[in-house]
C-alpha cells in the first residue's frame, strides 16, 4: 500500500498545471464527502476507452491525494492504465519491459492485474515476451501464493513452448512454484532434452537439475544389476573406470561391469537425457559442467560416469571459489567412485600458493584416491607438504597420512616411522598432531610398538600441546604392560606437575594412575593416591567427579563394592581401534552440486533427490502425439525460419534427435518405444535398421527419411561420436564375458608397459645421488618395491593402439557387434595373405571406415589373422615397411601368440596420402616374413562429411570447371529405388548423404582423409533410367577414379 501515494505523487507531476486548480477548488472538494461510491465512479471512468474520461479521473485522484484522502484502492485501476497501455505496445521489447515493471511492483492489490497480464503475455507471439511472463510467475507467487492453481496453468502452457528462450525461465518458475507437479513434465520431457543445448547457460543449470529429479522418479536404476558388487566398489570397478570411457575400450569395459543376469535395459528417454547433456560438459560455464556432472553421477550407469572426471578436473583451473565448490564435490565422488579420478591424481597436487581451504580439500581428495599402487607417489608428495609454512595445512597433511596408513595396510609401518620422525620436528603443532595420529595408528597393533611408546613417553617432558600430552598418557596407560618400567616414572612426573596441567591432561593422568594401580599396584599405589587426592580438590567438577569415581572403583573399600572386582575389566578392556574416515563419506545422499551438499546440512527449499523406483512408471506418458506425415513440408518451412543456431548446417539428427525440437524425430523414437516398449533404443538399433529399411521402401519418396538413414549409418561409423559409443555400450550390456576379460587383461598390460618408462623418468639418477644426504627423508620410501609411479596417464601411443586393438577384438569376438558398428563395410574382406603362401597363416583385411583413433588422416584397416596351421604363431608384427613417399603406417601392436585355430583382429592406420598407391610392408612372425601390400579403392580414401543442401551447392559452385567430372550412365532396372542407389554409392565410397529437395537427385559429400579436400558427388537420375553422375573435387585424379568406380557399381 505504501507505494500507492508515492506513485500518485509521481503522477501528479505529469498531470500538469491543472492540478493546483483542482486541489484548491472547494466545489470539487465537496464531491468527496461520501467517497466510497465515488470511487466506483472513478474506477468506471478509468476503465472506459475514452482518454478524456480517464484523464478527468486521474486529475480527480490527484486532487484527492492532495487533500490527504486515501485513494489506495484506486491504485490497481491506475496501474492498469499506465502499465497496461504499454503491455499492448506493438514493440515486443516494450511489452516485455512493461510486464517486467508491472510484476516488480510488490503491492498485493495489483495481483489480479498482474495475473491478467501474465496470462496474456504467456500467449504472446514474441518468445521474448513469453520469457518475461515466465519470469513474472515466481514474482506473483511470492506476492500471493493463493494464485498457485492459476499460475500452474500458465506454467503448463509455457512448458509446452518450443523455443529455447522460454524453456529456461519456465522451468525456473516451475521449480519455484510447483516442483512437486512432476506430471507436468512428462509431455515436455523429450522436448526439453532436445532443446537443452541451445538454452542459455543459466537455464541449462535449472533444467538439468530438474531433469535429474525427474529421471530419478521415472526410470529404473541403471546400476541395479551392479548392486551386489557395490558392496566392494573399490575393488570391483577399477578396471572399468580407469578407462574413463575414452575409446572404444570403454564399451568392452562396460560389459565387464555387468554380470549376465537379468539384462537391464535402459529406457530410451533415460538414454536421451544422458546423451543430450554430455556435450554440455564442454560448456564454458562451471555451473553447467557441474550440473551435468551431478546428473551423470546420479543417473548414469557406472561405466559411463567416468566421462565427467575430465571436465571437473578442468574446472580446477578456474577461480578459487569455483575450485572450492568443485573440490567439495570431487571429494564426495572420489569416495564412491575412486577409479574415476585416479588418472588425474596429479591435478590435485598442491601448490604453495593455493589458499589453505583449497589445500585441505585437495588433500582430502588425494587421500581418497590413494591406493596400493599410487601410495608411494602420494606419500612422497605428502612429505613435501609437511615442510610447508602453512601450519594448518601441515596438521591436515599429518591427519591424511594417518588415514592412508589405516586404509592401506602395506604402508602402515612406513607411515608410522615417518610420523615418529616428525616427533622431533621443531614445530610443536606438527609434533602434537603426529602424536594424536600415532595414537590412533598404534591402537591397531600395539604389541609391536613398545619402542614408539617409549619414545613418546620421553616427549612428555617437552610437548606442551594438551591434546598431544593427553594422547601420550592414554597410550602409556593403555599399553602399560609393554612399557612396565617407564609407565610408573611418567606417572611420577605427571603427579608432580598435575596442578599445572590442562583439564584434558588431568583426566588422562587420573586414567593412567588408575590403570597402573590395577596392573602394578606395588610401585604406584602411593602415587595414585596422591594424584587422586590432588584431583579431589581440583577446581573443575569433572575432574573431582572422575577422581571420586575412580577411587571407588579401584581402591577396595569397606563396603566391598561389587564393581571394584571388575575394575580391571572396566579399565583395561580391549578397545576397538578408531576408524579414520573421510568427513565426506555419505555426503552423497545430498544431491551433488547443491548448496545442501556443500554445507552438509539441508538448506531451505532443498528438494530431496528421490530414490529410484522399484518398478518403472509407465514410459508412454512421455509420448507426444505423432504428427501427420503430410505436414512435413509445412514443418520444414517453419524449421527453416526458426531453426536454432546449433542445429543448422551440420545436418542434424542421426540417431540423436537433433537439438532442434523436430517433432519428426521425436515421433520416430516414439514409435520405437511404443512398438517395442522395454527394449533399449540403441540396443535395438540393429534390428531397427532392418525395420527402417522396410519402412523406407514403403515410402521411398520420403527423401528426408533416407537422409536420416544415411546419417544414422554414418554416425555409427564414427565411433568417436557419443552416439556410437553409447549405443555400443548399452548394447553390450548383455555381458560378453570373453571380450570383457580381454579388456581387463589389456588394461593390465597397459600398466606394465608404462611402468619402466615412467620409473626412469621419475627418478633420474642425479636426484638420488646428489644432495641425498642433506635431505631429511621424513618417510623412508626406499623400502617400497619400485612402484609404478604413474599408473596414471599412459603415453598416447600405447593407449591408442590398445584402444584400436580392443576395437578389433570386439569385432571378431561377438557376432552382434560388426553389424552394429559398421553397417556399411566398404569393401568386403580382401585377402592379404593366402593360407598356402602364409604357411597356415591367413590374413584378410577390411576397410572399417571408422576414423582411425591415432591419426585422423589415416585410413583404419582391420586386419584379421587366423591360424589354420597346427602350431601357434608367435610374435606377429609389422616389419620395416618400404613405403612410397608420403605414405605412412601406424602399426598394430604386436600379437604375441596365435594358437592353432584361433583368429585375431588388429587395427592399423595407413595414411595413403590421397592416392591409390599400394602400401607395401612386411608382416613378420617370429620365424618368417611375408611381403604384403594393401591397395585402397579410391572410395576408402575419404570420410563422410555432413553438410546442408545449401552448403553443398555453394561448395559445388566453387568446384566447377576442371574440378568437375561428369559421366552419363543408364541405371539398370534393379538399381532404380532410392535405397539401392544410396546403398551402392555408399558402399563404393565412404561418403555422407546430403539432404536433397528433389526425389531423383542424390547428393553425397566427403573429404579426403589426408588433405581434407572436398569430394562432392551428385547423381541425377531420371525415372527412365538415364542418369548423370557428377563428381566435384579439387583432386582430379580422385574424382576421375571415383566416377569410374561408382559408375561400375551402379551399372553392374
Amino acid at each position, binding site marked *: 500500500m505504501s507505494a500507492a501515494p508515492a506513485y500518485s505523487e509521481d503522477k501528479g507531476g505529469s498531470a500538469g498545471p491543472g492540478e493546483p486548480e483542482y486541489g484548491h477548488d472547494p466545489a470539487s472538494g465537496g464531491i468527496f464527502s461520501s467517497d466510497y461510491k465515488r470511487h466506483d465512479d472513478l474506477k468506471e471512468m478509468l476503465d472506459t476507452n475514452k482518454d478524456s474520461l480517464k484523464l478527468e479521473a486521474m486529475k480527480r485522484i490527484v486532487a484527492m491525494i492532495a487533500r490527504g484522502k486515501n485513494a489506495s484502492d484506486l491504485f490497481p485501476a491506475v496501474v492498469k492504465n499506465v502499465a497496461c497501455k504499454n503491455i499492448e505496445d506493438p514493440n515486443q521489447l516494450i511489452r516485455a519491459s512493461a510486464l517486467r515493471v508491472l510484476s516488480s511492483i510488490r503491492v498485493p492489490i495489483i495481483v489480479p492485474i498482474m495475473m491478467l497480464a501474465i496470462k496474456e503475455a504467456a500467449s504472446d507471439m514474441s518468445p521474448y515476451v513469453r520469457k518475461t511472463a515466465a519470469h513474472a510467475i515466481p514474482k506473483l507467487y511470492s506476492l500471493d501464493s493463493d494464485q498457485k492453481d492459476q499460475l500452474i496453468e500458465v506454467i503448463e502452457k509455457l512448458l509446452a513452448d518450443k523455443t529455447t528462450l522460454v524453456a529456461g525461465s519456465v522451468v525456473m518458475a516451475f521449480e519455484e512454484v510447483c516442483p512437486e507437479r512432476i506430471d507436468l513434465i512428462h509431455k515436455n520431457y523429450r522436448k526439453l532434452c532436445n532443446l537443452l543445448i541451445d538454452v542459455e547457460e543459466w537455464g541449462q543449470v535449472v533444467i538439468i537439475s530438474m531433469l535429474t529429479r525427474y529421471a530419478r522418479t521415472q526410470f529404473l536404476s541403471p546400476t541395479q544389476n551392479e548392486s551386489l558388487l557395490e558392496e566392494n566398489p573399490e575393488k570391483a570397478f577399477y578396471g572399468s573406470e580407469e578407462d574413463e570411457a575414452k575409446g572404444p575400450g570403454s564399451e568392452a569395459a562396460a560389459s565387464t561391469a555387468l554380470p549376465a543376469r537379468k539384462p537391464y535395459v535402459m529406457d530410451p528417454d533415460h538414454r536421451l537425457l544422458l546423451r543430450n547433456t554430455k556435450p554440455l560438459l564442454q560448456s564454458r560455464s562451471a555451473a553447467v559442467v557441474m550440473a551435468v556432472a551431478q546428473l551423470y553421477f546420479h543417473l548414469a550407469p557406472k561405466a559411463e560416469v567416468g566421462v565427467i572426471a575430465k571436465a571437473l578436473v578442468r574446472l580446477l583451473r578456474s577461480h578459487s571459489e569455483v575450485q572450492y565448490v568443485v573440490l567439495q564435490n570431487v571429494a564426495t565422488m572420489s569416495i564412491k567412485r575412486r577409479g574415476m579420478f585416479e588418472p588425474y591424481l596429479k591435478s590435485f597436487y598442491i601448490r604453495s600458493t593455493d589458499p589453505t581451504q583449497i589445500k585441505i580439500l585437495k588433500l582430502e581428495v588425494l587421500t581418497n584416491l590413494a591406493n596400493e599402487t599410487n601410495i608411494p607417489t602420494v606419500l612422497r608428495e605428502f612429505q613435501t607438504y609437511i615442510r610447508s609454512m602453512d601450519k594448518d595445512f601441515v596438521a591436515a597433511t599429518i591427519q591424511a597420512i594417518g588415514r592412508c596408513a589405516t586404509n592401506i595396510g602395506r604402508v602402515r609401518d612406513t607411515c608410522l616411522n615417518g610420523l615418529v620422525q616428525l616427533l622431533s620436528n621443531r614445530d610443536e603443532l606438527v609434533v602434537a598432531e603426529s602424536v594424536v595420529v600415532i595414537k590412533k595408528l598404534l591402537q591397531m597393533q600395539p604389541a609391536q610398538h613398545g619402542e614408539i611408546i617409549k619414545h613418546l613417553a620421553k616427549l612428555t617432558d617437552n610437548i606442551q600441546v594438551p591434546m598431544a600430552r593427553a594422547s601420550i598418557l592414554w597410550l602409556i596407560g593403555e599399553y602399560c604392560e609393554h612399557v612396565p618400567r617407564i609407565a610408573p616414572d611418567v606417572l611420577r612426573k605427571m603427579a608432580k606437575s598435575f596442578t599445572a596441567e590442562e583439564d584434558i591432561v588431568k583426566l588422562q593422568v587420573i586414567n593412567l594412575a588408575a590403570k597402573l594401580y590395577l596392573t602394578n599396584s606395588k610401585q604406584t599405589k602411593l602415587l595414585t593416591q596422591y594424584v587422586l587426592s590432588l584431583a579431589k580438590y581440583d577446581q573443575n567438577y569433572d575432574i573431582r567427579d572422575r577422581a571420586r569415581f575412580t577411587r571407588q572403583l579401584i581402591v577396595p573399600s569397606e563396603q566391598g563394592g561389587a564393581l571394584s572386582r571388575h575394575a580391571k575389566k572396566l579399565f583395561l578392556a580391549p578397545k576397538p581401534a578408531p576408524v579414520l574416515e573421510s568427513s565426506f563419506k555419505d555426503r552423497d545422499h545430498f544431491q551433488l552440486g547443491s548448496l545442501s551438499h556443500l554445507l552438509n546440512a539441508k538448506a531451505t527449499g532443498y528438494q530431496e533427490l528421490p530414490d529410484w523406483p522399484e518398478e518403472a512408471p509407465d514410459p508412454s506418458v512421455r509420448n507426444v502425439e505423432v504428427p501427420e506425415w503430410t505436414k512435413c513440408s509445412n514443418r520444414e518451412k517453419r524449421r527453416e525460419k526458426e531453426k536454432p543456431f546449433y542445429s543448422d548446417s551440420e545436418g542434424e539428427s542421426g540417431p540423436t534427435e537433433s537439438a532442434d525440437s523436430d517433432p519428426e524425430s521425436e515421433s520416430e523414437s516414439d514409435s520405437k518405444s511404443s512398438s517395442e516398449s522395454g527394449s533399449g533404443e540403441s540396443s535395438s538399433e540393429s534390428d531397427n535398421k532392418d525395420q527402417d529399411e522396410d519402412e523406407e521402401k514403403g515410402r521411398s519418396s520420403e527423401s528426408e527419411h533416407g537422409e536420416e538413414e544415411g546419417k544414422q549409418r554414418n554416425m555409427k561409423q564414427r565411433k568417436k561420436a557419443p552416439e556410437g559409443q553409447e549405443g555400443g555400450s548399452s548394447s553390450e550390456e548383455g555381458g560378453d564375458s570373453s571380450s570383457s576379460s580381454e579388456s581387463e587383461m589389456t588394461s593390465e598390460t597397459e600398466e606394465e608397459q608404462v611402468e619402466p618408462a615412467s620409473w626412469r623418468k621419475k627418478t633420474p639418477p642425479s636426484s638420488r645421488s646428489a644432495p641425498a644426504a642433506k635431505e631429511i627423508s621424513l618417510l623412508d620410501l626406499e623400502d617400497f618395491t619400485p612402484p609404478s609411479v604413474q599408473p*596414471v596417464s*599412459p603415453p598416447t601411443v600405447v593407449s591408442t593402439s590398445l584402444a584400436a586393438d580392443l576395437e578389433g577384438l570386439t569385432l571378431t569376438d561377438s557376432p552382434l557387434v560388426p553389424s552394429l558398428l559398421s553397417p556399411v563395410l566398404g569393401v568386403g574382406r580382401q585377402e592379404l595373405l593366402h593360407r598356402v603362401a602364409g604357411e597356415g597363416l591367413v590374413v584378410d583385411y577390411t576397410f572399417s571406415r571408422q576414423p582411425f583413433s591415432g591419426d585422423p588422416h589415416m585410413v583404419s584397416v582391420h586386419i584379421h589373422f587366423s591360424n589354420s596351421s597346427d602350431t601357434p604363431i608367435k610374435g606377429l608384427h609389422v616389419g620395416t615397411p618400404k613405403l612410397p613417399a608420403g605414405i605412412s603406417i601406424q602399426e598394430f601392436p604386436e600379437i604375441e601368440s596365435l594358437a592353432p585355430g584361433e583368429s585375431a583382429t588388429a587395427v592399423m592406420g595407413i595414411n595413403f596420402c590421397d592416392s591409390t598407391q599400394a602400401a607395401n610392408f612386411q608382416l613378420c612372425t617370429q620365424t618368417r616374413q611375408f611381403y604384403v601390400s594393401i591397395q585402397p579403392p579410391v572410395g576408402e580414401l575419404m570420410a563422410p562429411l555432413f553438410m546442408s543442401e545449401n552448403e553443398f551447392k555453394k561448395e559445388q559452385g566453387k568446384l566447377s570447371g576442371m574440378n568437375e567430372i561428369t559421366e552419363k550412365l543408364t541405371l539398370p532396372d534393379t538399381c532404380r529405388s532410392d535405397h539401392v542407389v544410396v546403398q551402392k554409392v555408399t558402399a563404393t565410397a565412404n561418403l555422407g548423404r546430403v539432404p536433397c529437395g528433389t526425389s531423383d537427385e542424390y547428393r553425397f559429400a566427403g573429404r579426403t582423409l589426408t588433405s581434407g579436400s572436398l569430394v562432392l558427388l551428385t547423381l541425377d537420375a531420371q525415372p527412365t533410367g538415364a542418369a548423370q553422375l557428377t563428381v566435384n573435387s579439387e583432386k582430379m585424379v580422385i574424382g576421375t577414379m571415383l566416377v569410374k568406380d561408382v559408375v561400375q557399381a551402379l551399372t553392374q
Partner: protein
Amino acid sequence: MIHSLFLINSSGDIFLEKHWKSVVSRSVCDYFFEAQERATEAENVPPVISTPHHYLLSVYRHKIFFVAVIQTEVPPLFVIEFLHRVVDTFQDYFGVCSEPVIKDNVVVVYEVLEEMLDNGFPLATESNILKELIKPPTILRTVVNTITGSTNVGDQLPTGQLSVVPWRRTGVKYTNNEAYFDVIEEIDAIIDKSGSTVTAEIQGVIDACVKLTGMPDLTLSFVNPRLLDDVSFHPCVRFKRWESERMLSFIPPDGNFHLLSYHVSAQNLVAIPVYVKHNISFRDSSSLGRFEITVGPKQTMGKTIEGVTVSSQMPRGVLSMNLTPSQGTHTFDPVTKMLSWDVGKINPQKLPSLKGTMSLQAGASKPDENPTINLQFKIQQLAISGLKVNRLDMYGEKYKPFKGIKYMTKAGKFQVRT
C-alpha cells in the same frame, strides 16, 4: 534465487548494495565479517557461509568481496559463476574493476545489475546485449550526460536478445574488417628440488578479437587438433561440428571474447622452457643464510624468454636479504617476507642470477622449510604444445577480412620446490 548483492572492500566497508527482491538488512554481512576475521587472509574466506536465515556466497576479486545473499537452495556454482560474470562485465565496461571506479560509475553499475538479474534470476548476461541496453561510459558521453542530464540507457532497442544468435547484435559495421586470434598457452608445473618435473600440463586459451561487418560465419581449423584433449567453448561454437570434424565453426560475438579454452592431453610430455638452479641454505649456528638463484633457458625451441619474474615467499624467520642481481631489479618486503625479482629477458650467453645472504632473526632456530619459487615468463611466437591453426575461413559475407594469429606461451602456476 539471488536476493541481494553487497560489495565490500578490503577494509570491511559495504560500499554498494543492490537488492532484487525485498531489502535485506546490511547486518547480514556481520556473519561475513566474522568469517573474514577468522580467515586472516582474504582468499581464505569460505565462499559459502551459512547464517540462520540466509546463505552468503562470495567471490573475491580485485580486492573486493562480492557477496550474494540467497535464501533458498540454489547450486552454489550458479551464484559464484554469476558473480564472476558480474565482475567480468564491470571490467568490460570500465576497463578495471576497483572500488573507486565502481563508485564513480555507480549509476551505470546499478543499471547493469538491474538488467543482469530479474527477480534474482539471470536475464541478460552477454556483454554484447548489455552494451546495447546500457552504453558503456566514455569521457565524451559522461560530459554530455552531466550537462544534459540524460543517462546511459540506449535509445535504440536492443535486438540481440531476440535473435537466434543471442551473443551478436545485428547491423554491425566496420570499415576495416579484421579478425585476430591469440593462442595463449600456460604451463602449469611443479618442479621438485632436484629439477625433475613432478607434474606439468599445458592449458591454453584462444582469445579472439573479431571486428567483422554483418553476420560472418567463421571456421577455424587446426593442423593438429588431436593435441586438444579437453576443451570448453564459448556458446557460439557449434559442438557437433567439432565432434565430427574437429574444427571450430561459429558466428562470432562482436569484439573481444574467449573462443575456446583447452587442455593439452597429459600424455604428451611437456617441454619445460626454463630451469632454475637454486641454493638456499640456512645454517644452524649462524644467523646468516645463503641464497643463490640462477635462471636459464631449456627447450625453448630457439625463442627468447621474456618478462621473467621470480617471486618467493621467504620463511618468517628471515629478517632481511642482502642480494645482488646480475640483471634486473629485486625487492624484499620485510613485512610479508615476499621476495620478488624482475629479471626481464634471459640471455643464454649470460644467465641471470641473484646471489647474496639472508639474515635471520637472532636466536631463532633455522627454519625447516625452504621457500618455493614461483616463476613467471613469456615466450612470444610459440605455442609450446605445438598447436597450430591451419586456416580461418569466412562464409556468409562477401568482403575479405584481415586475419591474424598470434601465439604465446606463458607460465601459469609454475612452481619450483626447493
